[in-house]
């Protein structure tokens, strides 16, 4: 029961840290003014166009595709396999399981392999490509190690040493409804959950901030209309009231 209590507490803490940390960062990004119009052109000239540009960026990694087809392939496969895997995991937090979660279950089951393959390929680049090796720091390797660990331990449980999934689901639902249930003391599961906890704590204080950050990137989210509409940041507007050379 001690193990269950520790993990329950850690999951509450990690969730709080993740939510508060991300909210803090997002608020900071949103409230920091962008003094000048700097979309990388050619850029959309309407707000709708910007929404489409951002969608292409987030859903298809458009810019990365322009840059390097291999990095794009590995990166895209990893991210979308992970998305499927995460969505598939909703079945452990919902009762009854939502029908669309059931629908993706067959794909989600195998997406774990694609996720792992993508991660390993991305990691290999950090050793094999001289330029990427040069820019990779310890945290970059550790981050990949963490994600590989999560994916591998998950696949282990799915395909090699099954855990007591019914008890695990009871534990998860217990967390949500504040009706704590015991966590199966299965080493692979404990490893899997521990790594996930680390990921949750690391997210708001690491480069994983690229996920919310991309939406705030002025070179991607600004409308190209500086001649039509005057763009003015509050701190820059304050300079306007100072006397200048004009009449």
């Amino acid at each position, binding site marked *: 029961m001690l193990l269950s209590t520790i993990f329950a507490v850690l999951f509450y803490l990690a969730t709080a840290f993740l939510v508060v940390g991300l909210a803090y960062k997002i608020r900071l990004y949103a409230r920091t003014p962008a003094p000048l119009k700097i979309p990388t052109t050619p850029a959309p000239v309407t707000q709708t166009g910007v929404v489409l540009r951002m969608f292409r960026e987030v859903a298809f990694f458009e810019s990365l595709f322009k*840059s390097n087809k291999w990095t794009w392939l590995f990166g895209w496969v990893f991210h979308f396999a992970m998305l499927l895997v995460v969505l598939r995991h909703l079945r452990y937090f919902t009762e009854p399981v939502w029908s669309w979660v059931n629908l993706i279950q067959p794909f989600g089951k195998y997406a774990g392999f694609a996720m792992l393959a993508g991660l390993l390929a991305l990691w290999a680049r950090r050793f094999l490509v001289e330029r990427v090796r040069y820019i990779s720091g310890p945290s970059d390797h550790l981050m990949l190690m963490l994600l590989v660990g999560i994916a591998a331990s998950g696949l282990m449980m799915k395909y090699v040493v099954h855990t007591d999934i019914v008890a695990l689901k009871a534990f998860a639902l217990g967390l949500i409804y504040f009706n704590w249930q015991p966590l199966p003391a299965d080493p692979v599961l404990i490893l899997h959950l521990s790594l996930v906890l680390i990921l949750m704590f690391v997210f708001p204080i690491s480069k994983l901030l690229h996920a919310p950050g991309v939406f705030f990137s*002025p070179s991607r989210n600004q409308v190209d209309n*500086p001649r039509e509409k005057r763009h003015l940041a509050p701190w820059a507007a304050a300079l306007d009231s100072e006397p200048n050379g004009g009449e």
Partner: protein
Amino acid sequence: MADYETIPINTLFEIPKLNPGVMKESSPFVAAPAHQEALGFPGELVDNWQEKAIEKLGELLEKSRALRVYMDGCVKCGACTDKCHYFLGTGDPKNMPVARQDLLRKIYRRYFTFSGKYFPKLVGAEDLTKEVLDDWYSYFHQCSQCRRCSVYCPYGIDTAEISMAAREIMDHIGKGQKYCNEILGKVHKIGNNLGLPEKALINTLEDLEEDIEDETGVKVRIPVNEKGADILLVTPSADFFAEPHIDGLIGYAKVFHQAGASWTVSSYASEAANFAMFIGSYEQMKLVAERIRKAAQDLGVKRIIFGECGHAWRVAYSFMNTLAGPFDFLDPAYPVPQHICEYTWDLIQKDKLTLDKSANDHMTLTFHDSCNVARGSRMGDTPGGQFEIPRAIIKAVCNNFVDMAPDTIKEGTFCCGGGGGLLTDDLMEIRTKGASPRMTALQEVVKDSGVTHMAAICAICKTQFAKIMPTYGIGMDRIVSLHQLVSNAIVLDVPPEDEVEAETNEDVATA
């Protein structure tokens, strides 16, 4: 003299092996106290520079969303690593955009993030030391702020924003760059980068009018400070004297002449360039932009048109309305400002210019998209007009046009190597090496398609190419102004002496 004087042309897109530190010693002359103080910066490196630098970085993080997001967002994916012309030309890993950014990012992490404060080794955070400052001074002056890396970054991280911030920090601790800061002082005092005073400007342009008349037999005017003119032309001051820039200026004058337009140059705002962008100073940039506003108001013009200049057009198109607007005193029928290419293309489309393409038959042209026009601005109403309009003009005035390799033009264009405040003799080595991707692409079309000349619409590009092309075995006269081609092709007619008014448009067009 130096070992870079004979540079072999690379196979296109050959990515160099890393050569750490090879460009470490390449740094520009430091601004003298007088140049610094004229802009309100400390004359020399202040005693508590570390503290001041970190304080300034903190201030900039508050003021710029781009800087804040870009400091956090990089995942070191490597997408940008082979995109910078200075990296491709030197192999110095600190010229890879991500590594250049990291020079500032490691300081940001150390002083502004949890992980960097407590786990510096893990996340590559470092104390701000003299060595770091030296690296900043070298490598943030090996970025031409061309934004090519920002095209390929999955988060749109724009190294230009980061090098601007770094230069702004260095200015504020007393380590500014001589070239940019000295020039800005001249603009504030005299009105242009050259320090060309009103009298000299008027004389120069009168001489130029005579030259045009001698050559064409037509009196084409280049008015200065003409109150009540409809159009204020703001053009880089290099257009007044340098080659091939001046041939472009003659082209603008002929276009205005044929359109029967009433126009003028201002001596007070006789400079389109705004070098304050290079040093990342919003305040300085605003002061320079306000000169243009004041000139337009004093002369009572209805429209503002910019001549051929890359970063000037970025500042004009993207920033001027913000910096010195609103321009509600101008004629709302026209965008503020307009590019000379927009103006000329409009006349061509309306069939108001008589053009003899055969006048350019001795040349086969290619077009160099200037980086700041390509990735920091637009022309016309639709995205990409900045690529289509200049090409449309060239095709309207020349019979022979060939584009360079697709990955080296339009949004993927390579900087000339001299942008971003690097167009100074003390940076000749990096300028020469940084030009190699563009030169390689040019060589290819020279060999394969018989290209003889390259047209550009930027004063910096033109100066840079005229200077470095001989190193790559191409004559310095092979770089031409776009409006020089227009100038060659345009058929002038002789209006009655006293009738250079807009009303004569019809007669002029049907000549």
